[in-house]
């Protein structure tokens, strides 16, 4: 059988159909069978596993995994190696559920104990770990069974394969795992720090896969906080190594991984972003990621075209991710990116690509660039990026929506020339619907965008916002469990209630509900920022002509204002004083009555006291208010 199936997928499939697997497994498990027979069985099964994915499925369905794991308990090394080889082949297939490695809790410790038995056990077991560590739980299980201590010595194994698989183990163990990363920095291999071992593995004469994987390990350790971003092993070694991985000389897969890892490495650090931006022409090198499949490949050979097509999406999304990361903080870098050949066009077409991954990455990139005032004013407008962005917002999964709506927030800033056309495109309804989402991030972005939109807007727009949102939804948002949502909703209210005619107009139609909401928040348990924002709204209301009567006739509200004027927090005192100052302003109708009423309520005494306040702003504000009485 063994000789019949080697290298022949058809024969393998035939044997499986004929029911060879259960029979082989039976023989393998029989302790009465000779060791040679059991070993041969494992070898044949291993050979069957080398075939198609369907073969693997059939083997897994026949419960090959528990049988082989059971086989590892045998004392014979040759048999163990045959079982491990087969297990390895099964586990590295994408169709095998990795969970099967963890169902029996005794398996991992047993594998750890077998690890050092031979060169082959080292290679197969580390390869299994490297492929089956996919979740934080897996990382914890392996970590708790001393994976680090057991695998670290293998990094200096004389076998290339063992070194490579051990290195891969560390990259999957350290990924987004602080515990593992913190442990790794203190590990010594043959008296040398692990980070230095990784640095050596990044030397340019090492295999590319090794360089890339070592760079990943250091990246993950750095992101987990175990290595500082200004450490030489990051700045002078890991970062340049990852930039090299993005070069045209590398395979497409390597370029994708290199770019993604680099994006992840420098995401939180502006200094790394600056260095990367001028290293080896990275910004223009990335432009090449968009040239697949190239016109040449289509002509020369079909195989390459197929290969290019398969990787084209991956390349584009990786490039967008890296651009997003590069441009997330520094204005000069953003400028450099937007000036790259056809950059804005590429983003625009990326936003409407069929691949979700590309769309998401493109919108992330756009979001990063949208933090630039200059770009918002120029390239964003020139390329009408708002159009595909709006289209993207119509129908997209949440993760895309979050990014897209966040970008939209920036496009709706007052100075953005895209604001007008976006308004005309019926964005308000869309944003209002976002505020009803289950995702807090989407609710924040929706209300945030509305807030930006309402800033110094026409009355028409404001009325439209209030109408589309509906007071009911507005008040629901004011009691949102997410503070961000609440803050932005208050911000929206404040922007709506600016300039006197607008204040009076809105308060005449929604005055009652707004006053209720304000009361509710001032009475509730909220942060200083929330209360300050609310008092500012009240101050805006007090600035209206007719609207101020809503406060003057509400003694309860006046008592609250009085209370906040005597609050221990200066910001709240200031906002409350501002409110009173608006109420007693001289040049307006009925100011005398209001002054009298407030005087009777004891506000003058408070104002007088505040003129002695240590905070100069508060002191000034109180003095200005007092002058209204003197005039």
């Amino acid at each position, binding site marked *: 059988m063994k000789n019949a199936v080697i290298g022949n997928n058809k024969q393998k499939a035939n044997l499986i159909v004929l029911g060879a697997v259960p029979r082989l497994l039976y023989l393998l498990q029989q302790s009465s069978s000779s060791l040679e027979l059991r070993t041969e069985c494992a070898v044949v099964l291993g050979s069957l596993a080398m075939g198609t994915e369907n073969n693997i499925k059939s083997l897994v369905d026949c419960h090959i995994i528990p049988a082989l794991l059971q086989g590892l308990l045998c004392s014979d090394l040759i048999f163990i190696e045959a079982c491990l080889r087969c297990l390895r082949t099964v586990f590295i297939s994408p169709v095998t559920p990795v969970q099967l490695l963890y169902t029996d809790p005794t398996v991992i410790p047993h594998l750890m104990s077998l690890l050092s038995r031979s060169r082959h056990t080292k290679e197969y077991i580390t390869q299994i770990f490297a492929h089956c560590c996919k979740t934080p739980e897996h990382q914890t299980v392996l970590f708790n069974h001393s994976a680090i201590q057991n695998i670290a010595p293998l990094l200096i194994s004389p076998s290339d394969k063992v070194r490579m698989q051990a290195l891969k183990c560390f990259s999957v163990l350290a990924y987004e795992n602080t515990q593992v990363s913190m442990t790794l920095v203190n590990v010594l291999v043959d008296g040398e720090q692990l980070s230095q071992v990784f640095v050596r593995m990044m030397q340019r004469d090492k295999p590319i896969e090794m360089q890339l994987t070592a760079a990943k390990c250091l990246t993950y350790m750095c992101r987990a906080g175990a290595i500082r971003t200004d450490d030489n092993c990051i700045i002078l070694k890991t970062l340049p190594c990852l930039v090299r991985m993005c070069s045209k000389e590398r395979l497409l897969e390597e370029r994708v991984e290199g770019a993604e890892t680099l994006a992840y490495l420098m995401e939180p650090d502006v200094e790394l972003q600056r260095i990367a931006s*001028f290293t080896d022409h990275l910004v223009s090198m990335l432009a090449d990621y968009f040239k697949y499949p190239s016109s040449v490949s289509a002509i020369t050979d079909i195989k390459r075209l197929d290969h290019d097509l398969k990787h084209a999406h991956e390349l584009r999304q990786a490039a967008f991710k890296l651009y997003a990361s590069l441009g997330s903080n520094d204005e000069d870098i953003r400028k450099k990116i937007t000036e790259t050949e056809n950059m804005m066009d590429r983003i625009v077409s990326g936003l409407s690509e069929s691949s979700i991954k590309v769309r998401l990455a493109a919108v992330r990139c756009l979001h990063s660039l949208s933090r630039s005032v200059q770009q918002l004013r120029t390239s964003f407008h020139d390329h009408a990026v708002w159009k595909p962005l709006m289209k993207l917002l119509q129908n997209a999964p949440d993760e895309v929506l979050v990014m897209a709506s966040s970008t939209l927030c920036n496009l709706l800033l007052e100075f953005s020339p895209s604001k007008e056309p976006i308004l005309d495109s019926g964005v308000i309804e869309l944003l209002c619907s976002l505020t009803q989402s289950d995702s807090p991030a989407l609710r924040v972005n929706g209300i945030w965008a509305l807030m930006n939109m309402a800033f110094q807007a026409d009355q028409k727009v404001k009325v439209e916002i209030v109408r589309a949102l509906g007071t009911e939804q507005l008040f629901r948002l004011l009691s949102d469990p997410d503070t961000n949502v609440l803050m932005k909703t208050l911000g929206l209210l404040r922007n709506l209630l600016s300039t006197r005619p607008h204040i009076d107009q809105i308060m005449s139609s929604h005055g009652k509900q707004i006053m209720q909401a304000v009361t509710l928040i001032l009475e509730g348990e909220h942060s200083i920022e929330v209360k300050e924002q609310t008092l500012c709204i009240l101050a805006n209301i007090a600035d209206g002509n007719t609207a101020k009567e809503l406060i003057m006739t509400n003694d309860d509200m006046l008592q609250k204002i009085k209370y906040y004027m005597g609050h221990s927090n200066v910001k709240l005192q200031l906002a409350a004083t501002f409110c009173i100052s608006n109420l007693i302003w001289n040049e307006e109708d009925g100011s005398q009555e209001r002054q009298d009423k407030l005087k009777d309520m004891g506000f003058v005494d408070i104002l007088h006291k505040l003129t002695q306040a240590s905070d100069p702003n508060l002191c000034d504000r109180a003095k200005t208010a007092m002058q209204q009485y003197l005039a």
Partner: protein
Amino acid sequence: MSGPSSGCGFLMSVVVHGDLALNEQEKDLNQRLRRLYPAVNEEETPLPRSWSPKDKFSYIGLSQNNLRVHYKGHGKTPKDAASVRATHPIPAACGVYYFEVKIISKGRDGYVKYMGIGLSAQGVNMNRLPGWDKHSYGYHGDDGHSFCSSGTGQPYGPTFTTGDVIGCCVNLINNTCFYTKNGHSLGIAFTDLPPNLYPTVGLQTPGEVVDANFGQHPFVFDIEDYMREWRTKIQAQIDRFPIGEREGEWQAMIQKMVASYLVHHSYCATAEVFAKSTDQAVHEELASIKNRQKIQKLVLSGRMGEAIETTQQLYPSLLELNPDLLFMLKVRQFIEMVNGTDSEVRCLGGRSPKSQDSYPGSPRLFNSPVHKANVITDHLHFLLSPGFDSNYCNGVSSSKGHTLAHSHKSCPRTMPSPELGVLNGSRGQQTNVGAEVEMEVDHFSNGVFLCSKRQLCGGSQAAIERMIQFGRELQSMSEHLRRERGKNSANKKMLKDAFSLLAYSDPWISPVGYQLDSIRREPVCSTLNSAILETHNLPKQPPLALAVGQAAQCLSLMARTGSGSCAFASVDDYLH
């Protein structure tokens, strides 16, 4: 340096402290340059080590051993620009060349800080910044642009200013150049560079000061890592080089080469087995091979008298027809007499032949003819024969404090100072190898076979007398030869060197002591072997040695014609 130890104090006293530090730096520089550019033959193409005081515009001032450059012009217009070139162009055999410039001061305020770092060919106008003219290339600090033989720059990298370290790397394999800033590569700046460019720096602002590092200090950028990548690339290219279209042709050729090599050096048994298993015919009779083997063994064990006798028996006319060869053999015999190894003195002396007889290490026997292929440079030879060099070191370097300490360590005899004086005096004639001395210090311990009880001719008076007598015979043979065949300077020197051995109380540690090393038997053995083979109409060199020699020659030709890849294709790497 191991510092002044007793016995060499008078040597150190003349060295002032500053020079000492300078020597240290120079030593560092030499070491670093040799490590970075092992393929460069500095006798042919010296490496840049400093800026040239002769090849600069007058507005440039140099200081700190011509490594620091400052601007002393007006700096008002581009007409005030000034550049300086390094002392030598970049040799192609570097493969990858690198230097760094640190900006010490960006110059006085109120000026645009024009400053360019780059490369230029000889003869390019120095009243300009690098990059502005034909065959001139520069990266400018004020705008971060690169200038490729043009007055207008291209956006290239970031700007640079005080405190920054800018590196310039020339790749002589693909003729490109990239810069680095504070250890970060900025990517390719220029392509299609012409050969023989000089490191160049140009300034145009009063107060500007920059320092160059041509290898005096460790570089900020990891250039060795970049070189590793190119070494790997070149070696992969060699490994994957397509060979012979017809199957088996290549293999057959290699087998033939190996077989002929074995036969040439008379490895009878091995040759026989190899020929049998690879199905080849041997072109020389076994008996003949065995004869040669016998003679070679005698020569290599220092038994020259017997070797000559045997040769005369087996190849009666050979030495008669080759009086120069005979003379060489006899001179060697004389040396072996001094050594106490030759059969004629050994039977007289009371000395155990054990330590002398055993030829050190048969692997060398295998290698030696390869090394002796006359096209291989002496440099290579030195590296491969530490035994030889160690003696040499002892002899010539005693005038240098640091190596003297070594010789004290390894040689238990204390050296009386008068003898030192003699050694110093004799140093002059050895200057041609002075450069190798320092390098070989590390190998020192490997090759030492000095022993405290070594005595002239094995210590026997009779043997000494026989040696003296033999010397006289040799002298008259030399005179006879000169009369018959005219002057022969090689012969004359050979004899003089051999006789010089007697001028020292301990010839082994004398400046001419190298002759006593057993490795010196190899060229003699090889010459004799070749002569015998030639009389049989067989090649005097095995094809394998020829091929190796040709490869080495090819590499030095590549170096001369500007093919940088020769840097990463050392024949040596493939011999081990």
